[in-house]
């Protein structure tokens, strides 16, 4: 802008501030003579006062993106960093978020849903890379309700048409076990409770596999099973000092939250182990119970495949197969003679239990809570005559109507006395 300067060449006062690339110049608009020039480079002291421009602001990548979406994308990246995921996951999760945002239903959704969507995208990315992240973890990090999360998750999977693999149990065991604070002595962890990480992890894995084989995992939340398995594994590695410790105390010491179903899973797993122990002659004589069986978990796991086959049957066919099988495993004790003497139906003489148990999910073994009687055959055609009396039984007589109205008015009067807001009660 002309500020009183004069062009030294032609003397005109029309000086314009213009920049030649990044260099500011004062130029005469008549003759084009450059009157003054700005500084192209900055001195060291000058640069101290400048701030760097971030990549995302210097490029045009955010130009077409709404602020709400930008915020969501930032949240996705933050979540990936908090979870310490590999950098490739971040890009995939961001891509999913952008893809979701193209749908109008997502764009118009509430902020709560958009926040939860961030978690969904990260979860889907992790699942596709077999990274064991549970929904519970994400909900805790996002302070979100599992119900809201589940609704958004199912919706987005359907909307984007994605194939999301199941949670990988083995990886989850490793990750979850690593989070237990039992591998080093500390003020809260007594010396007898400290355990070797590898030993505990491998034994927990074997117990979880056993649970999976015996129908304790299908249809249930995976985490409580792992908690119960980890507890048993830990106990069995030093039973003398640890049998007295309860599951709740174990979780407290290990600084891990105790999931609600874990005690029930523990009971079921111990029941399976007891059934397996019945197949080993030298354990059968010990008459183990749910506490003492823990001492022998090592042996039971070592022979678990054979023991499960012998201890359980799938049905009548399984029973016959069990009979035909030769007792060829190496764990035959002195009771072999007794064991072989079986009746035709597979019941060894003098055995306590009535033969091999059925290998079924616990929900099929429990007796039904209430037996639904089969409904009577209905011969309704839909076009029957409807008698007046039948309809009138549902209507109020005029007297009843008056009484009802009086009662309603009285109730509303009482309410408005106690509460100034008038409530519209039943019509």
């Amino acid at each position, binding site marked *: 802008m002309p500020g009183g300067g004069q062009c030294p060449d032609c003397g005109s006062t029309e000086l314009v501030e213009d920049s030649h690339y990044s260099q500011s110049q004062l130029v005469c608009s008549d003759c084009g003579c450059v009157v003054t020039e700005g500084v192209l480079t900055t001195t060291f002291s000058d640069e101290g006062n400048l701030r760097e421009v971030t990549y995302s602001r210097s490029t045009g990548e955010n130009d077409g993106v709404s602020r709400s979406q930008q915020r969501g994308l930032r949240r996705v990246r933050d979540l990936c960093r908090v979870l310490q995921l590999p950098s490739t996951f971040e890009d995939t999760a961001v891509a999913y978020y952008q893809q979701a945002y193209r749908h109008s239903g997502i764009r118009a959704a509430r902020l709560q849903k958009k926040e939860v969507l961030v978690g969904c995208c990260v979860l889907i990315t992790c699942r596709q890379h077999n990274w064991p992240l549970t929904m519970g973890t994400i909900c805790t990090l996002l302070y979100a309700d599992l119900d809201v999360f589940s609704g958004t998750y199912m919706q987005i999977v359907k909307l984007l048409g994605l194939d999301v693999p199941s949670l990988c149990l083995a990886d989850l065991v490793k990750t979850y076990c690593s989070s237990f604070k039992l591998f080093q002595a500390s003020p809260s962890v007594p010396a007898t409770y400290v355990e070797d990480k590898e030993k505990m992890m491998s034994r927990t894995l074997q117990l979880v596999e056993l649970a999976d084989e015996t129908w304790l995992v*299908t249809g249930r939340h995976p985490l409580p099973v792992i908690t119960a398995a980890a507890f048993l594994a830990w106990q069995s590695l030093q039973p003398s000092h640890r049998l007295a410790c309860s599951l709740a105390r174990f979780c407290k010491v290990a600084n891990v939250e105790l999931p609600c179903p874990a005690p029930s899973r523990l009971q079921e797993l111990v029941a399976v182990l007891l059934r397996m122990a019945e197949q080993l002659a030298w354990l059968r004589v010990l008459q183990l119970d749910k506490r003492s069986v823990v001492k022998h978990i090592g042996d039971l796991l070592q022979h678990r495949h054979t023991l499960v086959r012998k201890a359980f049957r799938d049905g009548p066919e399984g029973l016959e197969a069990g009979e035909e099988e030769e007792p060829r495993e190496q764990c035959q004790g002195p009771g072999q003679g007794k064991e072989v003497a079986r009746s035709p139906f597979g019941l060894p003489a003098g055995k306590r239990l009535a033969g091999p148990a059925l290998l079924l999910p616990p929900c099929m073994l429990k007796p039904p809570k209430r037996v639904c009687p089969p409904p009577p055959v209905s011969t309704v*055609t*839909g076009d029957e005559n409807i008698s007046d009396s039948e309809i009138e039984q549902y209507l109020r007589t005029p007297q009843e109507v008056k009484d009802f109205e009086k009662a309603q008015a009285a109730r509303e009067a009482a309410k408005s006395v106690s509460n100034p807001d008038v409530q519209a009660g039943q*019509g």
Partner: protein
Amino acid sequence: APPTLLTLGPPPMEEEQAYLELYLDQCAAQDDLAPPRSLLLSPVVPDDGYIPNTSNSETVFNSHLEEVKASGHFSSVDLSFLPDELTQENKDQSVIRSKQDIEENCETPGQQSRMLLPREQDVGLGLISGSTLLNSHSQVYPGDADPVQPSPEKPNCTPLMSITPMTPVTPVSECSGIVPQLQNIVSTVNLACKLDLKKIALHAKNAEYNPKRFAAVIMRIREPRTTALIFSSGKMVCTGAKSEEQSRLAARKYARVVQKLGFPARFLDFKIQNMVGSCDVRFPIRLEGLVLTHQQFSSYEPELFPGLIYRMVKPRIVLLIFVSGKVVLTGAKERSEIYEAFENIYPILKGFKKA
């Protein structure tokens, strides 16, 4: 060596003509049957070595069967040309012949629902494996003078005559013997007049109206035991009935109640919107395996819900499959869709029967 039960290669011309005429005679008696098309005229390829049952062929067939049976079991017979599923020894070779035979051979669930109205059972049978020819078979056999009966020693070992050449890919549709029970029917109807909900709630004993919570009157009747949502626009939703007829009767009763309250209610556009059925296959199911093999249809998230959600494309039904073997089917507009969906899922579930 015993003669092969079914010959490869086309039968002699005269025999073929005779079979064709006899078959067509029987078919002509039935109005709703499609002509047998290429059933007999196509050369006998491995999959359709079977010639439909006629009184002439029966004796020939029977004698073959007796010879085979005399040899003890089918393994001595060269069955290699049959599709894999049919050569399993303990495969249930159920016969879709007549309603009576179904009840003999298949496992009866022991429920009254097995004594279905003839109409319902027809519909169920007609849609098994989607082949109209099965329907024709079920019509043909009762008319036969001497239908081949299953061998008395092994009630489940029925002759191979149940093979239908028209469905080479799907195995012989074994009737699962289980009929899903309808648990809930949702229907809508238009009463075609504006309603004063306050007045309805005042004059009807069985009505609930809380405008702050929901903008409709909730009315219930005892017989059939149902609930209705009645809106001020005159539209009504009726839920809780166990059959289509009951739903219609219930909706009519609600309309009568509204009429008696002084509104000019009509009964327009009654429509069944949703039907829910359930049944039990009685064996545990490995849901993790099912979600792996049928990934494009299944959704199994044990962290959220213990059941597997299976979205079947044809018919368009959603099934909830649980580890205990209980199956819930929903999303049907017609009863036949539920039966068809279950017959489609049953062989898939059987594949996951053992660990």
